[in-house]
């Protein structure tokens, strides 16, 4: 049984980092906030590893299943007798896996940032935000209560907001941070309502209780929830779909993905941590957390998840082929890969061999975290070196940045699914799962994996080969700092090793939909198609981008309007802009403000003005003429007397 203190310390150490450098950073530990944060996170990382070791190897299985452990459950806020937010720590295979992912990537990013962010004015603030994010993400991962997940969900959202807007005097960064927060907030609205629906019908906010009640078709909870219809769909389906909406927002699924490319305005290590490896997979994690409900009770919603994932994967891959900002390419690639994870869950079933998709999704989440973080950190190193995000300013960098080049290549091979790198194994499993349950999605995925190889190697050749490097930033000696110190190289190398070797982990042993071990099968015959496609993509990219030439332009011409639409990201941003600016701001907001000032307040003012007007008229009676008063008095007295005598006897 893992120790409560050990597990509690995993999120609390980064929190301590946040508080310390947040409060004292500005004055007292300005220069040391980085090392403080890194060391605290190192502690967290070691504790996570030991927890994982304890859980998987010391504590082991009971009845062939890894048991879910809840070392802490504290009622934080009791809404009513049944519903309460319990702050809990839950240890089960996926949360342990996520602990490893989060602490590893976060540690690497902390370390890397020591070099990357050196000399920044708000260095300590940066580390305190990183601490806040890591704490929130770990809290999210360890949540055992759906409302607790929502709490940390919001917290990662806000730390993402803070980090995207880290360069707050850059208007584009401010706009991007706002966009990220608001779009995910919109999705969270769905999540919140989903929580309300599901917790109301299941009578609990605790995941275990909720899943248990909602997955037994005979239970009263399920019956009442199915009986309750809204617009012809059962309440349960609505709840599940809305919860997924929250996940889709955070995981940048189509059509809620628009914030992710803009989020690249943040410092590159932040993109590596938040917008590649950890926060954006929270949606996948959430679906995985509630997987039994989706798989057993609302299969229709699960199928929808599959389609959303597949569509996102292919759209993002197409857009990625056309972008020139290297971070944006990586962002779309992230979106595409998360699409893979999402549809893997979508095509999965619950239990046994049918649950392959679930295992594959988690496996891909794990490997993707490693190689995508590596890609971002590598891109960061490149950007650090050339002071530009644009591919046209790069080229021929392999001579100047050998370590970065090597690790970047490893990561590209991994994401392209070339054996024996990590991505190959996880992607094969996903494709296999899709092949067995939904051929349509399988073919989409197959095409997407070919595109993936193409755009990644387009990036790779564009950065490191192509034309010889010429420093764009004239008057600035960009070569002086080289690739950055060992603090920046070490994470690259470590992650490179992980990206190369993580595929050999027998993942099915540890993580599966029902907890029972799932052996992975490899069919060489099955692997031929995707690997061939991947190689073809690489070759195409090599042909177009190995040397600088006019092939890319020709290609773009050949696709014509389609290329242009993809380059403009299929105009989704513009649609959103129209809805928010024109409809919400101008139509609704302006109308509401006008209505309030003119109609509602106008009515109040009218009351006041009418009173004034009437008094202006009737003040004439106050003429100062005594006889007039007396006459009125007598008349009134007579009338009243007559009234009382004759009418109101």
């Amino acid at each position, binding site marked *: 049984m893992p120790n409560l203190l050990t597990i509690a310390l995993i999120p609390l150490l980064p929190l301590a980092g946040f508080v310390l450098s947040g409060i004292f950073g500005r004055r007292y530990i300005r220069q040391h906030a980085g090392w403080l944060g890194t060391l605290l996170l190192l502690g967290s990382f070691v504790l996570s590893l030991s927890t994982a070791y304890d859980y998987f190897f010391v504590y082991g299985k009971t009845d062939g299943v890894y048991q879910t452990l809840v070392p802490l459950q504290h009622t934080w806020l009791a809404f009513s007798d049944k519903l309460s937010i319990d702050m809990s720590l839950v240890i089960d295979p996926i949360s342990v896996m996520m602990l490893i992912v989060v602490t590893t990537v976060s540690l690497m990013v902390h370390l890397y940032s020591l070099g990357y962010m050196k000399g920044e004015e708000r260095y300590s603030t940066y580390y305190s935000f990183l601490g806040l994010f890591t704490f929130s993400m770990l809290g999210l991962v360890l949540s055992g209560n759906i409302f607790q997940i929502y709490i940390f969900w919001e917290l990662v959202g806000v730390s993402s907001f803070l980090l995207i807007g880290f360069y707050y005097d850059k208007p584009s960064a401010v706009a991007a941070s706002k966009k990220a927060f608001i779009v995910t907030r919109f999705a969270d609205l769905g999540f919140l309502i989903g929580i309300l629906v599901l917790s109301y019908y299941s009578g609990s906010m605790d995941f275990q209780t909720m899943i248990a009640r909602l997955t037994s078709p005979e239970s009263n909870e399920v019956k009442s929830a199915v009986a309750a219809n809204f617009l012809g769909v059962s309440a349960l389906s609505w709840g599940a779909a809305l919860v997924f909406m929250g996940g889709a927002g955070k995981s940048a699924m189509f059509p809620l993905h628009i914030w992710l490319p803009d989020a690249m305005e943040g410092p590159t290590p932040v993109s590596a941590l938040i917008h590649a490896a950890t926060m954006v997979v929270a949606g996948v994690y959430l679906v995985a957390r509630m997987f039994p409900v989706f798989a057993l009770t609302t299969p229709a919603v699960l199928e929808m998840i599959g389609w959303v994932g597949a569509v996102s994967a292919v759209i993002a891959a197409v857009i990625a082929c056309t972008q020139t900002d290297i971070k944006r390419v990586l962002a779309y690639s992230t979106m595409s890969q998360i699409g893979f994870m999402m549809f893997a869950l979508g095509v999965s079933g619950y239990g046994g061999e049918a649950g392959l998709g679930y295992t594959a999704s988690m496996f891909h989440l794990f490997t993707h975290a490693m190689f995508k973080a590596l890609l971002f950190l590598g891109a960061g190193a490149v950007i650090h070196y050339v002071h530009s995000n644009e591919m046209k300013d790069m080229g021929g960098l392999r001579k100047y940045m050998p370590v970065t080049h090597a690790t970047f290549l490893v990561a590209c091979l991994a994401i392209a699914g070339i054996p024996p790198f990590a991505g190959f194994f996880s992607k094969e499993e996903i494709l296999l799962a899709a092949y067995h349950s939904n051929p349509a999605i399988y073919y989409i995925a197959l095409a997407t994996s070919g595109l993936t190889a193409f755009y990644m190697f387009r990036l790779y050749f564009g950065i490191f080969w192509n034309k010889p490097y010429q420093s764009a930033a004239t008057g600035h000696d960009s070569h002086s700092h080289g690739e950055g110190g060992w603090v920046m190289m070490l994470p690259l190398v470590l992650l490179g090793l992980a990206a190369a070797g993580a595929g050999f982990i027998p993942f099915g042993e540890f993580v599966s939909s029902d907890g029972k071990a799932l052996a992975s099968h490899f069919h060489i015959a099955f692997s031929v198609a995707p690997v061939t496609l991947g190689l073809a993509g690489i070759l195409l990219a090599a042909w177009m981008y190995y040397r600088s030439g006019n092939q890319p332009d020709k290609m773009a011409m050949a696709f014509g309007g389609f290329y242009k639409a993809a380059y403009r990201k299929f105009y989704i941003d513009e649609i959103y802009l129209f809805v928010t600016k024109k409809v919400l701001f101008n139509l609704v907001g302006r109308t509401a403000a006008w209505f309030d000032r003119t109609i509602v307040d106008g009515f109040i003012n009218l009351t006041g003005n009418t009173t004034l007007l009437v008094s202006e008229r009737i003040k004439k009676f106050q003429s100062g003429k005594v006889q007039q008063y007396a*006459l009125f008095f*007598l*008349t009134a*007295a*007579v009338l009243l*007397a007559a009234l009382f005598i004759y009418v109101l006897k």
Partner: protein
Amino acid sequence: MMNGSTILFYLLAALTLGCGVLSISTRHIFRAAIYLLFSLVGVAGIYFWLAYEFIAAVQIVVYVGGIVVLIIFSIFLTQQAGEKLPAQSLSRGIWAALAVFCAFALTMLQVVQHNFPEGGENKHVTVRDIGEKMLHTGDGGYALPFEIISMLLLAAMVGCIVIASRTKPESK
């Protein structure tokens, strides 16, 4: 059945009301004061007719001898001789007459409809009775009001002097 007493009453009533009307309608202010005087004398006559000689005497002494004289003095002080009073606006006059008539009619209707209880045997009131009661301090005595009224008169006297004698503020 008309006897002397009855005729006397009607004469007195006619004197009172007639002079009252003339008093409020004449446009010579001095004549108005004189008509008022006769009207008050008429009221005193009614008191006599009712056999309350003491009250009638007081009425004549205080009203006729005091107040009317005071009024005449003030007329001399404030009015140019022979000046006619300004007329009230016609509409005001009509409205006032209408309101007053209605009120009068209403009051009289009520008075006539009301049945006042008949008093017992009539008893002559002597000045002695009045004096004893006025200075009686026990139950039903009027000693305290009497004193209060005297204080009031004193206060009124002082007040009159203060009001009438006030010179204009510092400007002079």
